[in-house]
C-alpha cells in the first residue's frame, strides 16, 4: 500500500535543473479538475488513506494525525483547504507524505498521476489566474502537450501561517 518513489538527493541528482535551482522532476496529483505538481525531492512516500485521529479544535482541512511508523504525522486534506472537488474518502483516496521544513506532513489528494520531467522551457511563469489556490504558492505552470500542470511551492505552502500546521513561533 505504500510505494516509495526514489526521492533521495543522492539517487536523483538530475532532479534539479543544472544551475537554475528549479526542480525539473515533479510528482503530479489531481485535486478536483486540476492537476498539480510538487518537487519530487520533497516527497517521502505515498500511502493509502487510513484511520486518522482527529485533533480537537483544528481547522476542518486538518484531518488529524496518523501513526507513521512511530512518529505522529498531521494530515491535511488539500481538497478541503482549497475547496476543490468533493472530499470523498474511498479505497482510492491517496495520501502523499511530504518531507518539508524538517517536518513530515501528509496531504490528501484525489489521486496521484505520475512523475514528470519538465525542461525549463516547459515551465512558464505563474500568471494571475482565477484559481482557488492562492497564487503566492504557485511557482509556475508546466505546459505539456494538452496538459497543464500547476507547480506548487509545497514547502512554502505547508509552512505558511494559514495552514495552521506549525506554532506561529516557528513560522519564518
Amino acid at each position, binding site marked *: 500500500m505504500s510505494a516509495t518513489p526514489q526521492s533521495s538527493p543522492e539517487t536523483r541528482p538530475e532532479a534539479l535543473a543544472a544551475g537554475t535551482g528549479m526542480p525539473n522532476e515533479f510528482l503530479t496529483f489531481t485535486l478536483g479538475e486540476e492537476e498539480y505538481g510538487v518537487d519530487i525531492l520533497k516527497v517521502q512516500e505515498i500511502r493509502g488513506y487510513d*484511520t486518522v*485521529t*482527529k*485533533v*480537537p*479544535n*483544528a481547522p476542518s482541512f486538518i484531518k*488529524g*494525525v*496518523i*501513526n507513521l511508523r*512511530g*512518529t*505522529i*504525522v*498531521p494530515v491535511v486534506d488539500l481538497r478541503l483547504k482549497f475547496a476543490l472537488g468533493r472530499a470523498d474518502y474511498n479505497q482510492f483516496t491517496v495520501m502523499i507524505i511530504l518531507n518539508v521544513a524538517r*517536518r*513530515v*506532513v501528509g496531504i490528501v489528494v484525489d489521486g496521484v498521476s505520475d512523475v514528470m520531467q519538465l525542461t525549463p522551457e516547459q515551465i512558464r511563469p505563474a500568471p494571475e489566474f482565477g484559481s482557488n489556490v492562492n497564487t503566492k504558492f504557485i511557482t509556475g505552470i508546466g505546459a505539456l502537450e494538452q496538459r497543464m500542470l500547476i507547480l506548487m511551492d509545497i514547502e512554502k505552502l505547508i509552512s505558511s501561517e494559514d495552514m*495552521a*500546521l*506549525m*506554532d506561529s513561533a516557528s513560522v519564518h
Partner: protein
Amino acid sequence: MSNIDLSRFHRTFFDESLEGLDAMESALLRLDIGQADAETINLIFRSAHSIKGGAGTFGFTAVAGFTHLLETLLERVRSGQRQVSQADVDLLLRSVDVTRAMLRAADGGDACDLDNVARVSAELEQALDMKPAVVAPVAARPVAAGWSIRFIPKPDIFASGNDPLRILRELDRLGDAGITCIADDLPELGAIDPERCYLSWNIALRGDCDEAAVREVFAWVEDECNLEILPLDQPVATAASVEGMEAAPPAPDAGGRVVKKPQLNVVEGGKAAAESSIRVGTEKIDALINLVGELVITQAMLQQTAESLDPVLNEKLLQGLSQLDRNTRMLQEAVMSTRMLPVEAVFSRFPRMVRDLAAKLGKQIRLETVGESTELDKGVIERIADPLTHLVRNSLDHGLETTEQRIAAGKNPTGTITLRAAHQGGHIVIQVSDDGRGLNREKILAKAAERDVPVPPNPADADVWQLIFAPGFSTAEAVTDVSGRGVGMDVVKKNVQALSGQIEITTEAGKGTTVTIRLPLTLAILDGMSVRVGDDVFIVPLNCVVESLQPQPGQVKALTSNARVVKVRNEYVPLAPLHQHFNIRADAQHAETSILVLVESEGRKVAVQVDELVGQQQVVIKSLEANYRRVHGISGATILGDGRVALILDVAELVRGYARAAAA
C-alpha cells in the same frame, strides 16, 4: 611526540577531569577542619594528580602547571607537613573553580579569566611559600641541593603505555634537571626491537623539591623500572653531562620506528570507576529507548490480535505471547533504568553554593540532603537543576532570617535548608524546605496589588502562595545579587511544568516554607487511563486521576446554563464535558448518563465527562509538536495497541482553565 592522534582522547580527559573536580569539591566540603581524615585528603589529592597527569600528557600546559601547584599543596597536607586550615579549604575550592574554568576554556569554551588564574596561582604559591619561578622553571634560579636519580626502565616499559620521555619532562618541571642518557645496552640497528627500551638515564635534579615529589613523577612506572634516588649533596659539576631534553629521547634515532603507546595515565586514574561502568552517548541510549518503545507497541498489537484467537487451538502461541509480554516489559524497564541517575548528581552542587552564599549574606546556614540516591531520568535531572538552584537561592536569601533575627525570634541561630528526594508512586518528589520566616500573606497580597497581578477575591492561602509564581513578582525588600530580581519563580514554575511536573508551596509563619516539586520518573513513558468520548480515545495521565464515578440523578447541579458542578461527597467540583471542549461528538450529552473521571492538578479538581473507561495502560509519549503544533488541552500523543494515535489530555491546563473561569 607521537604519531597517534591524542585528540580523540580529549573528550574522555575533559569528562573525567570535570568529574574529578566535582569529586574534589564535594570532598573538600566534607573535610572536617582540624581532623581531616586521610581517606578524604587522598581522594582530593588523587583527583588533582590525575588531572595534572592528563593535562601534561595532552599538552594543556597551563592546566598542568596550575594543578601542579595545587597538587604540591595537597601533597604537603597528605604527608602531614601541613595542617589544613579554613583558609586552605577556601583557597583549594577557588583553585577547583579556576581549574574548571581552564578546562572549559581548553575544551573550546569561553576563555577563562587569566587574571583570576594568576591571582589564585599566586595565592597557592604564597601558601606554599614558593617563588613564582615554579610555574616557569628557568635556570636563573639559585641552584639548591637536589637529587641524583638513576632511572633504569625495564625493557618492556612501553608495553604498559608509559613513556620515559614524559617522565623526564616532568622531572625537568620540578627543577633544573641534568639528564644523561646511557645507551650502552643499545644493540645493532638490525637487532633492535622497536617495542623494547634499551636506554637508561642518570638525572641530576637540582631544585628545592622533596623526595616525595620526585617519587611521584615515577608513580606510574614504579613497578616497571629500577629506581635509585639519592640526595645530591654538593652542586655537582654536571655541566659536561647535561645534554638537555633533546639528547634524551627514549628511543634511538637510528631506529626511527619506535612506536610509542598513547599515554593511559588519565584512564588509569579513574580505573576503579572504569571497571564498573562504561561511557555511552545519550543519543545511543535514546535510540535504544525509542526502539524498545516501538517494540512495546508492536507487542501490544500482537496481544490484541491474539485475543480473538481460540485459546485451546492456539495455546502455544498464546503462551509464547505472554512470555514475550513479560520479556518486553523487563527489557523496557532495564533500558529505561540506563537513563536513570541518582538525584545526587544535582544535589551535589548545593553544598558549595550554600556555603558561598551563606558567607556572602552573613548567615549561618546548614544544608541537609535526604534521599540523594533516589534515581530519576537524566533528562529530568538536567532540567531540574536550574529550578532547584533558584529555589535554594530563594530560601537562602528570602526564606532564612539573619542570625540576629533568628536569635531574637528564639530560634537556632543556624538556619537549615533541607533538600529531600523520594519516590512516591510513579513520581519523584523533591522538596526544598527552610526553617525560616515563612511566607507573609499580607506582604504578598500588597505586592500583588502593587504589581497588578490578578488576585481572586477572598483568596485561600494556597492561592496566595501561588501568586509568587506570577511573572515579575518579587517580595524581597532589597534586591540582592543573590536573588530578588523578580524573574525566577515564574520561570521555576514554567520549567517544572515543562517536565509535566507540579509545584506546591506550604508555609507557616515563623516556622518556614517548603516547596514541593512533583515530577514524573521519566519523560518518555506515562501510566495512562484510556477513555472514550464518541469515536475518539483520549489518555488521561493516571497520576492525575483521583477517582471515577457514575453520577446519581441530582448529583450534577447547574450553576448557569453552561457551568455545572458535581457534588462529590462534600465537595462541589466543576464539570468538564470533554466533547464540548474539543467540539466532538459524544454518545451521552448529559452528565447523568455518562461517566465522570475526577482529575486533580495543583490542588484543584475537575470532573471530566466521558462516555466510557476503556482501560489502563503504559503509553509511550510522542511529541505532537515535532510535526504539528501545540494543541490546547492536549499534552502529547501516543500510539495505541492497534496502531492508532490517541491524544494525551493536558489535565493541568484543563484544570487551570476552570480555575481562571472561576476567578473571572
